[in-house]
């Protein structure tokens, strides 16, 4: 047989929505975005799937996590794979995810990015890595009108006791509906709890055209085998690291970064001792230095500093 897998397994008309969020704090809202759209589309007679990325779980506070929806006019055949292969729409529940996280990976040419932010679109754009496929950027201040729903309910595939779309998720769902024709607004409003928030997102998202990619949408990604049985270390065993575990660099987790005022520092070293990530280093003079490569922005250093020598500043205030 001589078929091109990509063409053979095309699913035309299928829309893939990928929502990125910060673990534990916002993953519920990420779920809300995909479930709201999927439920609305299902009411309209479409075939749908909505789920959380399994490999991102268990979610940890601040770690980037993903939720997915697939909406199709025909029954979905690519139903048992781990991720959306080519998202049409990418949504960020929190703005710092544009920095250091490959949110636009495998975006379909002409794809849409929606970001929850107060900042200017151009400012946001500078942080994204490869924007060649990005067709449109939408910015909406969801946090200004709704909160994040923090709950354990609904994790691991169980029912969301708090319902769908009570907070930021509803706003972002509305924004998507405006940016791309997927579902009718009325059907989406029926699917969410906080209809005001959803309407707000629809009416207030600022859309900006970015690129105009010419390629037709490509579909199926063939699996690359990252590891061969002979390149994978024996039994998966690895040598212990000496100074840092480069396989898990966590600097992109932070939404706020610690800013150090050396003049106030008393050299008590509590921040150094109490950092769970070892991201505060001792200097020879007996003071400290902050290693942003691994810092997750938890803020413990600020909490334990007796001298007010550390403050947390939004990470996106810094261009590098």
């Amino acid at each position, binding site marked *: 047989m001589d078929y091109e897998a990509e063409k053979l397994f095309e699913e035309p008309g299928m829309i893939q929505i990928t929502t990125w969020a910060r673990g534990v704090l916002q993953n519920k809202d990420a779920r809300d975005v995909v479930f709201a759209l999927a439920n609305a589309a299902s009411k309209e007679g479409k075939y749908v799937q909505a789920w959380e990325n399994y490999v991102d779980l268990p979610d940890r506070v601040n770690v980037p996590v993903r939720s997915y929806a697939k909406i199709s006019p025909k029954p979905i055949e690519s139903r048992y794979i781990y991720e959306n292969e080519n998202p049409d729409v990418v949504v960020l529940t929190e703005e710092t995810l544009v920095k250091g996280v490959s949110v636009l990976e495998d975006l379909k040419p002409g794809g849409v990015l929606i970001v929850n932010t107060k900042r200017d679109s151009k400012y946001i754009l500078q942080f994204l890595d490869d924007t060649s496929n990005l067709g449109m950027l939408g910015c909406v201040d969801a946090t200004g009108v709704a909160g994040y729903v923090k709950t354990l309910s609904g994790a691991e595939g169980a029912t969301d006791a708090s319902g769908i779309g009570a907070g930021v998720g509803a706003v972002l769902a509305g924004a998507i509906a405006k940016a791309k024709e997927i579902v009718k607004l009325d059907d989406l409003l029926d699917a969410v709890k906080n209809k005001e928030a959803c309407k707000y997102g629809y009416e207030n998202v600022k859309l900006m055209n970015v690129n105009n990619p010419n390629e037709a949408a490509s579909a199926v990604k063939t699996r690359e085998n990252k590891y061969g049985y002979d390149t994978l270390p024996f039994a998966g065993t690895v040598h212990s690291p000496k100074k840092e575990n*480069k396989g898990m660099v966590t600097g992109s987790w932070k939404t706020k970064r610690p800013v150090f005022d050396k003049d106030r520092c008393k050299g008590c070293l509590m921040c150094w001792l109490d950092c*769970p990530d070892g991201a505060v280093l001792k200097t020879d003079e007996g003071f400290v230095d902050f290693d942003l490569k*691994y810092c997750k922005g938890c803020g413990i250093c600020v909490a334990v500093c007796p001298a007010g020598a550390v403050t947390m500043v939004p990470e996106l205030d810094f261009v590098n």
Partner: protein
Amino acid sequence: MLENIKTIKNVPDEEYYVSGHRTCAGCGPALVYRLVAKAAGPNTIFLGPTGCMYVANTSYGCGPFAVPWMHTQITNGGAVASGVESAFKAMIRKGKYTGERPHVIVMAGDGGSSDIGLQALSGMLYRGHDVLFICYDNESYANTGIQVSPTTPWGAVTTFTPSGSKAEEGNKLWPKDNAQLIAHGHPELKYLATASIAYPIDLMNKVRKGLNAQGPAYLHIQAPCPKGWQFDSDKTIEMAKLAVDTGMFQLYELENGKYTVTHTPKKRRPVKKYIEMQGRFSHLKPEHIEKMQRFVDEKQKAMEVEVTAISQVAPIN
């Protein structure tokens, strides 16, 4: 013999739990690991039963341990450690290994210590293996998304103990006191202590005392969990301090059959202060909080008595 650390200036610089792990921002157990590894030093073998400190630390086939580390099942941390320790004993005696005898430390969660892993812990203590068994207690099965464990406080919400019309308080069971459970009845137990990340130097010294003991030692370390207890990630240390200040967690050690309380708060704060800071208790009504206060008062009374026989906190109904 590992030396007592006097002040923060004497804390060694070297890290044996290095940066780069997929633990929550503000993770209490991660800080426990860092402090324990620092205190233990390079001649250490860690055994990691399944749990947060396994999955979060070694996600994607790599890890932050600068010393030898091996995964065990959640069921058998104590048994695997017994095997490692026995192997070195035999190999050294038979001349098959001529290096330093390493410290063997098990880092188990509350499930792997008080529940599914309890049997293996007890077997290890009974046989007298020279192993330090540490329970990092975040008061739930956290890695699987926060489910009730035997150390989950009464009245806490987890996904297996949600609050609802038929279960107002959430968790209806009073927790096991694993340290007390194993403290009495294991004749070979050489050293036992509770510790908290709120008192990191005390924690490290207890680790060293446990390692110096020639025989089995047990440390029960409370490790607040921002995800499970539902508080902001910068409050981890504050939460640990409050646990001690309210009496919800007590700091003591048991050595040569004698108990020593290693820290008493100057004034014991009402448990309400602790409860209102955590989302897992946000459903509790005043009558529930009163019950918790009585439970803590009883625990405190028991701790103030010289304990040489089996102590038991009466269940409160």
